[in-house]
């Protein structure tokens, strides 16, 4: 366990209710500065709800979310908005997370307008161009609209927007799940590079275990709103403890496995 005073983000007893039941139930964890914490779980596990609750996009019923000591759940208005500079999110559907009526340049300039309103147009344009290059896009695309780009490129734009203010923590909610498999690696490698270059901590949420394993130092497994296992990445994947984790790992269809003699996969049925 990380020493509480060192952690960047400390979540205790978080509970989010949805339609009467607990979508996130008594969740506690920490993230250290520049650490990547993976979060795996299937649909209905509550992982996306957790991400949104951390960003105050959905209301939490109970619990605390301490970011550098300040409880974000008790912040309101302008104070909360100030903290948003350091805590950003990348969404699952790249195209839907971009305003269709704004150009890429306008979308990327918005964080600058919000948090650095005094900088001039020319500097804004330079900063936007820099960020576009950093995420692997040509600066000229600033004048185009989201629908002119592919899914992978839209996700690069989404990442660029999130990184404009160099946040200390980036929440990635299934950032590659809707992309082609051959493109997923591009985005994962980009996130990995950014993480290394800028020292950004990440909460990386995905149902894709191999991707999570690649990026994360520690991994949490979520099921029915609760954390059922937290461990270092290599330990979790090598020797999972919780039966749900084992079932999850066994169920991933794997071409490499097709070449090995198969064991009978543990499959749990928990369909409602």
């Amino acid at each position, binding site marked *: 366990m990380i020493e509480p005073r060192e952690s960047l983000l400390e979540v205790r007893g978080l509970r989010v209710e949805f339609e009467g039941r607990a979508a996130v139930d008594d969740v506690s964890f920490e993230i250290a500065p520049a650490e990547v914490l993976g979060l795996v779980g299937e649909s209905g596990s509550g992982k996306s709800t957790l991400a949104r609750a951390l960003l105050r996009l959905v209301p939490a019923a109970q619990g605390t979310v301490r970011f550098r000591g300040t409880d974000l759940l008790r912040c309101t208005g302008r104070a909360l908005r100030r903290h948003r500079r350091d805590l950003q999110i990348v969404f699952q559907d790249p195209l839907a*997370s971009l305003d269709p009526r704004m150009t890429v340049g306008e979308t990327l300039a918005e964080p600058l307008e919000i948090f650095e309103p005094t900088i001039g147009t020319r500097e804004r344009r330079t900063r936007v161009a820099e960020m576009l290059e950093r995420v692997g896009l040509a600066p000229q695309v600033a004048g185009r609209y989201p629908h002119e780009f592919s899914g992978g490129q839209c996700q690069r734009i989404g990442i660029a927007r999130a990184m404009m203010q160099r946040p200390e923590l980036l929440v990635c909610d299934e950032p590659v799940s809707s992309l082609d498999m051959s493109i997923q690696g591009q985005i994962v490698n980009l996130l990995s590079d950014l993480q290394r270059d800028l020292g950004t901590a990440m909460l990386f949420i995905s149902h894709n275990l191999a991707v999570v394993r690649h990026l994360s130092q520690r991994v949490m497994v979520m099921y029915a709103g609760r954390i059922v296992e937290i461990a270092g990445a290599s330990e979790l994947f090598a020797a999972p403890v919780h039966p749900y984790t084992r079932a999850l790992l066994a169920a991933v269809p794997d071409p490499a496995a097709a070449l090995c003699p198969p064991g009978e996969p543990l499959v749990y049925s928990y369909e409602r």
Partner: protein
Amino acid sequence: MSATLWRGAAERLRANSAAVAAIWLLAILVLLALAAPALNPNSVETLDWSRVAYAPGMAHAHWFGTDRLGRDLFVRTFEGARTSMAVGLVAGAVSLSLGLGFGAIAGYVGGRTDYLMMRIIEILSGLPLVFFVIFLTVVIGRNSYVLYASVVAVGWLTMARIVRGQTLSIRRREFIEAAVAGGAGPVRVIWKHVVPNVLGPVAVYATLMVPQIILFESFLSFLGLGTQEPHASLGTLIAEGAGEMEAAPWILLAPGIFLALLLVSLNVLGDGLRDAFDVRETA
């Protein structure tokens, strides 16, 4: 604002022959209303007692004839058209702004605020409007401000409802969440993200709202509550003409036809705009 949204819509509009015809018709009507009176030497108010209730003819350039008081109908018809169009435009713009602001705030903020705002709209919708106008006229007196106020009172309620509905439908979309997560305050979100994205359907309804406003103004004028003598609006002219229908049918004809053409072209254009904006621009 998205150039491609408007460009795509403009292309589809151009392809819609009925809408294009409507635009042309509208342009002609506006041109006539503005320029036609210059062609005619008569003035709006001059009473020509020698030719009272004159049938349309070439004498003295009374091309549309004269009314009961000997006033030239050609000039008066187009003055009436100008008045009606001005009311439609100005009151339309004010209704649009009021409705847009109210609806966007109610739809986005939600909760108690939305609840209260909607109750206000419902109460105002329930008030019998004509009594309201009469009340205002009694209190303030007859002038064009009362007229404009009453007409705006009609238009903005529906616009507010429409905008609120549109706002509700995009409020949960991810790019709105992204803007909030990015630190945008409610004002910025509404102004920069909500409004541009509802503008498409709003533009359509605005175009359809204008004929309603013009019609309502005509109705008020018909009742004697709107435009006052010696000024004319299409409504007052039609009211006069209705009274003289048996003896001098031409008094009713010109303003009636103009109003009908104006309303039809606006409605067809509105339908065309709705079809043009309907296609979502998902790649």
